[in-house]
């Protein structure tokens, strides 16, 4: 990426989507089942509100600090020493997010498609693909994302709508009018991980060439994600029911796998479409590695265009991090316990904190 490399607003929206839509997509209904029960749609609604608030605050943050990338803005406001204290854990966290995503994918593929293949081999394959794709450059990555991510959205939505014809458990779908106790709040806290990974906004928004409607373009991916989560949730609960969903590791995928289309070459069409998740994996990891590389560049005082220098070591770090969780249960526990909260702190929390300090010190440059 050279200094002049710019992306369009559409590419920004797609990169934002690629950066956070994906983690836990097929497993989140399980987290909602036991806690939220029939209030799961309220959990999702609240999650969407939190997500929208986060994207708007991050967009405002980025515009407020006038074209600076996230880390540049941090250093600008709080200075370099404190900035490093804030940035380094954030980098580590986001790399760990990528590692969790990688491990999930290996586990998912092992469970459903390649039971005998070692998860390390699957992870290595994805890492190599990420190294290659990210190594092609930022503009290329943005173009690839535009070609593939919306196609994934549409494909998965259509597939779930087809599965929707099997919905019989409407009782599990429709929200309960009995809202006491308000379990949906606890449910939302368990699935916050679905809307972390938004650090893409302060990194990529400054790279947009013609920025006319920033708030619209950062809202679009969150709304699209909301629709996707809603459909997955409705179909999964509607097909599998409330309690069975809570007993499955990937209930979204299990619901999708009930879709069979006899007569086609691949009869198990749902299973095939579930595999399309792979595309988002490369996007999710690619975005993580890119933003982490950019952050490290700024920490070392280098130009962000040299983020590719750190590609290989970051990929190795992500690979080894992905091997830390001992099993799927530990992975699940990580996701639902602290990752969501940590992510929210590092996205929304950091942005609000820096905006406050920035206002107080008059350090911002309000951009239109």
């Amino acid at each position, binding site marked *: 990426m050279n200094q002049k490399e710019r992306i*369009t607003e*559409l*590419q920004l929206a797609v990169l934002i989507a690629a950066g956070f839509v994906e983690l836990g997509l097929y497993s989140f209904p399980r987290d909602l089942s036991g806690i939220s029960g029939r209030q799961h749609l309220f959990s999702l609604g609240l999650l969407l509100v939190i997500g929208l608030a986060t994207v708007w605050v991050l967009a405002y943050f980025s515009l407020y600090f006038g074209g600076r990338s996230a880390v540049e803005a941090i250093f600008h406001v709080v200075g370099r020493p404190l900035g490093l204290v804030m940035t380094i854990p954030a980098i580590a966290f986001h790399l760990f997010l990528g590692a969790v995503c990688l491990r999930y994918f290996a586990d998912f*593929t092992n469970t459903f*498609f*390649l039971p005998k*293949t070692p998860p390390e*081999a*699957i992870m290595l*394959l*994805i890492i190599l*693909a990420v190294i*290659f*794709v990210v190594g*092609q*450059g930022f*503009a*290329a*990555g*943005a*173009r*690839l994302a*535009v*070609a*593939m991510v919306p196609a994934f959205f549409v494909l998965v939505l259509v597939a779930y709508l087809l599965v929707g014809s099997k919905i019989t458990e409407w009782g599990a779908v429709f929200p309960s009018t009995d809202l006491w106790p308000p379990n949906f709040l606890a449910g939302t806290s368990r699935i916050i991980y679905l809307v972390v990974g938004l650090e893409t906004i302060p990194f990529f928004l400054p790279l947009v060439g013609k920025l006319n409607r920033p708030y619209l373009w950062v809202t679009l991916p969150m709304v699209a994600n909301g629709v996707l989560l809603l459909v997955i949730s409705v179909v999964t609960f509607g097909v599998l029911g409330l309690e069975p969903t809570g007993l499955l590791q990937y209930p979204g995928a299990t619901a999708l796998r009930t879709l069979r289309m*006899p*007569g*086609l*070459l*691949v*009869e*198990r069409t749902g*299973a*095939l479409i579930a*595999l*399309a998740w*792979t*595309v988002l994996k*490369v996007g999710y990891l690619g975005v993580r590695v890119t933003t982490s590389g950019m952050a490290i560049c700024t920490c070392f005082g280098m130009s962000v265009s040299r983020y590719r220098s750190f590609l290989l070591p970051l990929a190795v770090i992500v690979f080894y991090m992905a091997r830390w969780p001992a099993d799927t249960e530990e992975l699940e526990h990580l996701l639902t316990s602290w990752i969501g909260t940590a992510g929210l702190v590092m996205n929304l929390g950091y942005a609000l904190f820096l905006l406050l300090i920035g206002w107080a010190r008059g350090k911002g440059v309000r951009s239109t």
Partner: protein
Amino acid sequence: MTEGGDLVGAGAGAEYSGDLAQARQFFQGRIGQSSDFRYRNIRLGPKGPAAMLVYLEGMIDGTAVDEQILQPAMQNGPALVQDLPNAARTLEQSLTSRAAVRRTSDLRKAERGVLDAQTCLIVDGCPELLLLGVQKFPQRAIEKPSTEHSVRGSREAFTEVLMTNLTLVRRRVKDPNLRVKALQVGSRSQTWVAVCYIEKLTNPAVVEEVLRRLKRIRIDGLQGVQTLEEFLVDHPSTPFPLLRSTERPDEVARQLLSGKVVILADNSPFSLSAPSVLLDFYQTMDDYHFGFWGASMIRLVRFIGWLLTLYLPAVYIALIAVNPEMLPHKLALTVAAAREGLPFPPIMEVLVIEVLLELIREAALRLPQPLGTTIGVVGGIVVGEAIVSAGLISPLMIIFAATTMLASFTSPTLDVNFAWRLMKWLLIALAQVFGLMGIIVGSVVLFGHLAALTSFGVPYLAPVAPLTKEDLGDTIVRLPYWALRFRPRHLRPLDRRRAAAYDHPVQTPDLEGAQREGEER
């Protein structure tokens, strides 16, 4: 060829002093060593100055030399003697020949002109030499295109003569802004290369860059325009072609009108156009000679052909060997039955049959046409049949391989076909280990590579990535002409509008009324 051209590689000059002996010595010491070199000592009229004609046998029109150059020159003989230093200028103005005439005082330039099938007239005492473009050499007539057949389009294809090719293009684009910038490439071959574009339409940055890259080429010989391709492209190591080549003048005209730069070279019946994106390689003139429904159907068939070329062998291996649970159970049993007793795993089957097909394809290409067709048929049927009967390959594999091969022929251009045929091996390797997931990862990697490619700064996957909605009307489907009012945005033309808005519906003529009127009259 002398029009508006820059001479590349002319080398250091050798100034002509006006002494005929110097010129004679110069030529005899260099190209005079060849037996097809000719020089004639003449006198331009009974009282005219001594002169010498220098040319290469077989490359000039002798009759034109005699009638259009020598005869008028001899008539002007006395006038030339009176002003010998300006004799060349006087001759230039008095000659009736339609041929191009150029003056130079550089012997090396004159030498290059002679090598370029021009005739050099040297007048003793005049420090300038005349180069006369009275070429006449054996050349092929304009024939039908051999690689890009068209059902309804023109049947003309380029030949090896650059001037003829330029004429074919000019007949189709009579825009006074059509510019041709010529230069010579190759220190020994001195091949003329013409860069064509429409001024005030084509983005000047592309033109400048094309010329800049051409001028930087330092090779000794250029035998075809395809040699230039490897020097001109943004990414030399990719297997994907980044410049579209064609032998059809109508295709070149269409490219020029889209806002592209076209490069033609002498001795090459193909042209290159820049910038070219991936979808350009799937567009042919036939798409514009049929109605939009037919054209869209043809394009869809090509798209399906591309999918099959790239994915069919890999999907076969993935579904047979790694993820057989995806197949319908009856098909799974059919496949299992077909493979009973076979000695090779699916990957070896794919390898063997693909290599066999490539051998048959190459053999059919190299042999004379009737024999090539026979070999193709015999090779396909006999070898295919025999190999199945011998129990080495399953019949299913033959079907898949034949389908893949047929699908690959739907690609209008061979160069992109080669690239996909190479890439399918990557997918086959990934499918062998990781099944369907490997194919998806391979596709991501492949498209990642394609997304990174540019052709003179234009992203290779335009207008899909970056997405340009208005340009999608001429990609996988072709919208009607009245809907394709703008040139492709990714080419950044200076004049975006191609056509004015067309009002539909057209007025229905009053046939009956006109007939009645005519009868009354």
